[in-house]
């Protein structure tokens, strides 16, 4: 299994900055998440050989595809890469079957037909092989693109925003199929997207990338709960990111104390930060609990904060409530179901109390500005 691994280290200053190092094991889906222009596609193109960065190294399955130090650069036709392009890039003048068999140049003519049929079956397209791409739906085109990418018997599968051009329902189906495919392929799958929800559904590990730099590579749960720094926290959609000072640690009760403006908050035990140290901290919007006016509960003793509702914004089934605590200029943001907002009569200008759930608070190293 170790042999199926791909190892990548890419660095360049411009025109698109890259500073990335990671490896991906066979059978693993590594999802690269980042905003538009963060270098995601350049990363995939570099692996495929469609782009050569200034400095870098790519080892795949025991072969060196790129090593700028020794001047090794295997041409893209010789890198066994399966690439699913964002808009699939199917050959419009060829049928589904021909699109796939064109990538089977490494096989004898006699074996190509059989292999094409196997691949069509693998992606559930058995009866549509004679159709041109224009006669297929978005989801079917995507399946042809996946089958074509797998036709070369690739050592790594690269997916560039593969679900961006299909509707929600098809997307759910394709995500499930991708998960099934992973267990059968045993090759590294590198999947690029700007959609964090999609990443959380399919990823074994997520790599957060920004301005060409890999900021954190970990499991989806770990990244969501413990972002490495405020930039990662903000990229994965956290609103509540603040500065604070560590006050003390209590190893017996496995908790730490944090001073945020004038409020002392109890947080999970994080002894890696020294008392007195300036830190940043984050709490997910769903880890704030509203104090119900009519029915106070014991949970309200946990990090209570009182303030004024700044803004109430209904987005679909949920209401995003922004609260300005009495002692602070910074606002806390929480999400509550619309019916809860209605029942508690949440309106702008109202006074409310919330609890910051201790387990949801995560301390982070204060980011040092790079020169």
């Amino acid at each position, binding site marked *: 299994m170790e042999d199926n691994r791909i190892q990548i280290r890419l660095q360049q200053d411009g025109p698109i900055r890259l500073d990335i190092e990671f490896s991906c094991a066979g059978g693993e889906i590594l999802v690269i998440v980042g905003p538009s222009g963060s270098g995601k596609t350049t990363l995939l193109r570099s692996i495929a050989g469609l782009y050569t960065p200034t400095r870098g190294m790519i080892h795949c399955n025991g072969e060196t595809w790129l090593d700028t130090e020794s001047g090794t650069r295997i041409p893209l036709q010789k890198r066994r890469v399966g690439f699913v392009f964002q808009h699939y890039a199917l050959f419009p003048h060829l049928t589904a079957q021909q699109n796939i068999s064109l990538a089977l140049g*490494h096989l004898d003519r006699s074996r190509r037909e059989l292999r094409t049929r196997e691949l069509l079956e693998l992606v559930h397209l058995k009866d549509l092989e004679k159709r041109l791409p224009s006669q297929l739906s978005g989801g079917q085109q995507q399946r042809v693109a996946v089958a074509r990418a797998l036709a070369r018997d690739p050592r790594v599968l690269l997916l560039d925003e593969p679900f961006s051009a299909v509707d929600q329902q098809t997307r759910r189906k394709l995500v499930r199929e991708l998960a099934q495919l992973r267990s059968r392929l045993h090759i590294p799958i590198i999947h690029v997207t700007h959609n964090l929800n999609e990443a959380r559904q399919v990823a074994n590990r997520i790599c957060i990338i920004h301005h060409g730099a890999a900021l954190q590579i970990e499991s989806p749960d770990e990244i969501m709960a413990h972002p490495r720094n405020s930039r990662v926290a903000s990229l994965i959609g956290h609103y509540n990111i603040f500065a604070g000072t560590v006050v003390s640690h209590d190893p017996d009760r496995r908790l730490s104390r944090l001073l945020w403006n004038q409020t002392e908050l109890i947080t999970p035990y994080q002894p890696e930060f020294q008392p007195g140290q300036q830190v940043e901290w984050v709490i997910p919007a769903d880890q704030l609990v509203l104090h119900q006016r009519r029915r106070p509960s014991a949970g309200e003793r946990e990090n209570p904060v009182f303030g004024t509702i700044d803004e109430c914004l209904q987005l679909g089934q949920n209401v995003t409530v922004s609260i300005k605590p009495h002692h602070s200029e910074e606002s806390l943001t929480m999400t509550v179901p619309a019916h809860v907002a209605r029942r508690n009569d949440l309106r702008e200008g109202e006074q409310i109390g919330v609890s910051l759930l201790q387990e949801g608070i995560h301390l982070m190293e204060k980011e040092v500005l790079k020169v």
Partner: protein
Amino acid sequence: MDWQALQLSLLLGACTAALLLPFAIVVSRWLAWRRFHGRNLAQAVLALPLILPPTVLGYYLLELLGNQSILGTVFTAVFHDSLVFSFQGLLLASVVFNIPFAVQPIQRAFETIPQDIREAAWCCGLSDWQTFWKIELPLAWPGVLSALVLTIAHTLGEFGVVLMVGGNIPGETRTIAIAIYDRVQAFDNQSAGTMSAILLLISMAAIALIYTFNDRLDRRYGR
């Protein structure tokens, strides 16, 4: 009706297309995808025959191909024949004045092929040469067909350049367009009318063929 002139025109059209199209495919593919200094100048020079008066183009070709010119002298020394007032000279002139009619449609066709389609071909293991034959050329085919039809139709109809470079030698340089002029000068309006009608029909059929074919391809590829 001067059948010999029609035959000569068709032969000239076919030979021009045969010589010009491979050149046009190479040049237009290069212009479509490469960005280099002087690209606009190169495009302008290639488009020049479109706007230059045919007599002006004919004059310069006469100068270029004439027996006193370097090209004319070399040709005469090698083939013991002249480039002006001969079929071969006419053919060379025809290739030159048809350049924009061949290059432009093919260049447009190459430009419509998305870059990721070519990249996908490379990622499928296809070499540049295989990508050209299996992907690029079939996709640029409507442009190549347009170029073929336009070149032949335009060769049949060209008058000024042909008269300047080739003159009016029956069986050698008298094309159908020249023959029509010749017949009108001789007050033989019936022959001129027949030949004009034939040219009109050929031109209409050519244009209709291009539109029909391109429309069919567009529907087939869902463009």
